[in-house]
């Protein structure tokens, strides 16, 4: 059963690269630049892992995470030097992150 990943980042190039880099037969990635779209997706379809960028227009990753189902594991990605989120994230990645580290993380998650 493939892993459903939702990726939210207002940087469209990153969405594209993330998808291109990690999508496979085992991993299905849906990337969004708009927070509402990402939230709607998690409510509509099953999502196993959500990546949320912290810096978003008119909102931030923390708030978005709160709007999603608490049961879905969430990863925060941020370019900020210091972010202390309220919602529990399973991991925080700091941009720029090594894609290798990301690959390793996703693989571990699969298991």
């Amino acid at each position, binding site marked *: 059963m493939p892993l459903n990943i939702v990726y939210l980042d207002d940087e469209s190039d*990153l969405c*594209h690269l*993330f998808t291109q*880099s990690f999508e496979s037969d085992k991993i299905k990635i849906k990337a969004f630049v708009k927070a509402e779209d990402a939230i709607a997706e998690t409510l509509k379809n099953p999502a196993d892992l959500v990546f949320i960028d912290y*810096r978003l227009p008119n909102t931030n990753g923390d708030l978005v995470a709160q709007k999603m189902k608490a049961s879905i594991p969430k990863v925060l990605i941020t*370019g*900020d030097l210091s972010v202390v989120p309220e919602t529990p994230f399973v991991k925080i990645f700091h941009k720029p992150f*090594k894609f290798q580290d990301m690959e390793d993380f996703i693989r571990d998650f699969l298991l």
Partner: protein
Amino acid sequence: MPDIPKQWMPVSLPVSDLRRVNFIGAFLILGIFTKFFVERYFASINELNKFFDVVLDLLCIAGPEGKFKKINPAFSDLLGYSEKELKSKPFIEFVHPDDVDKTIAIFDKIKAGEPTLKFENRYRRRDGSYLIMSWSAASDPLTKNVYASARDITVDRQHELELRQVFDAIERSSLVATANIEGRITSVNENFCRVSGFSRAELLGQDHNIIKSGIHSKEFIQNLWDTILSGRVWYGEIQNKTKEGLPFFVQTVISPMTDIMGRVQKFLSIQFDMTKQKESEQLLEEAQSVAKIGSWSFDAKAQNIFWSKKIYDFFPRSLDMGPPNLAELEAYIHPDDQILWRTTVGDALQNGNSYKFRFRTIFPDGKILWLEAIGRSRFDSSGKLIGLTGTCQDISDIVVAEEQVKIERAKAMQSSKLASLGEMSAGIAHEINNPLAIITGAVWRMDQFAKDPEKLKARVETIEKAAERIEKIVKGLRKFSRSYEKSEYKDCSLSAIVNEALILTEAKSIRHSTQVIVDIKAEGAIWCDEIEIEQVLINLINNGIDAAKDQAEKWVRVELTENDTSVNLRVSDSGKGIPNEVQKKLFQPFFTTKAVGEGTGLGLSIVKGILDEHDATIEVLPDLPYTCFEVKFTKKRRIHAA
């Protein structure tokens, strides 16, 4: 008996005839002599009569009863009465009522045998006016007639009275003293005593040096004496000393008084007390000295310069050399400032303009002074330019202080920049991190796409774009934090500067989710220091973002317009607006409404400082529902240095 010529002798005469002949002869001789003497007598009577009639002095004979017996024509001519009228009444009736008693008394005296000289009384003329007459008279002891001559001294008296009044006026208004040719005081007036502090008794007979102050040079005194001894009048200012030793200043005229042969007999000095005036002059000098300012003037016609005492301190020229001529003056000016001096002063002399400019003087030992000269033109009554007048001030201290201010401001700007840099760094880090993340992402396993040129190309483009983003930000930062001491002005495009500033503030605006609206309607060409103006913009935009961040509506708007006279920049935000009390203090240094650590408070004061240097204005526009800062750069025509 004389010889009688023969022809006269009768031929023959008897003795009685001979006696008859002698008698006739004697009679004839007597007759001749009588005729001779009578003629001489009448001639002298005529002469006396002529004298009586012709002479201008009044001559008269009066009888002891007090009536004119004989008067000369001059009498009636002067008094206007006919001879008959004058003789008809006692002469006392022609005398002024107030002088009647004394005239009668004198008349009696004269009749008693006492002649009189220079007796004065007033006679009434026919027209009712009075004359002053001076009489000399004597009486004939036999007949008791009085013989008198008189002169009309009315005019003389009038002159004397005027002279007296003039002298009284001088006496009352000034210090008057006389001294003999040895310099000993022979008379002093009331004022002299009062001002000098000495009594009359203490002064008379004293050498005039009793009031000497000792301040005047030997040459000065020598010159004074030489002048008055040679019969000329001396004018000048003298400083004397009172009895108590205090100085007093007098504007002095010393006039030698000569006898009728032209020999100097004594000296008259008339002095005006100008101590008060001198005191204010000295106060002015002291004030000028403290303020390090002096006054000067230039007479265009005579090409003469006048310098007040203080100005000699500003130039390598000593006081006793007197003022310089134009060529000498120019030589004292620093070579780099000479052209400016020449053109400024030349312009004033040609066109009647006033000026204020700074220049340096250079001393032989290498010392340099900064001076500020203010000058304006002087005109005569017909409007012709006759010269210049003005002040000159040593502003070396001010220039040093200004340099200090510039240094401090540069320091403050630097620290302010660093502070805002600190503020922005968090946001900027983020802004660099995104492109970096893209690059790392694009590069990871890029070799996988070696066989897929399309995908490869796309990746490469992505990388390039991201790299460019980073480059822009870093470049902007580098320029922003570059340290400088001197502003570098050049032709800039304000729209370009706005765009650059927007790059650096993008991070913050995104972080605070604030929309930055850009409305550039003009190029906005201005003469400015690019980096300083960029800092102004960053400051204003950042402030706008901070103001808007707690609002429901978050936006900052940057608008650039241009008209004939100015380039206008408006930075508005959707913030709460600025209360009036705050508006007044807005541009003061260290004034901030931000919480501690959030803002340094230096921003707007530095902004104002920068804009002041650029001759631009900044103000908060009133009566708007939101906050709007308006910056105006006036368009001016730049004078290109020759």
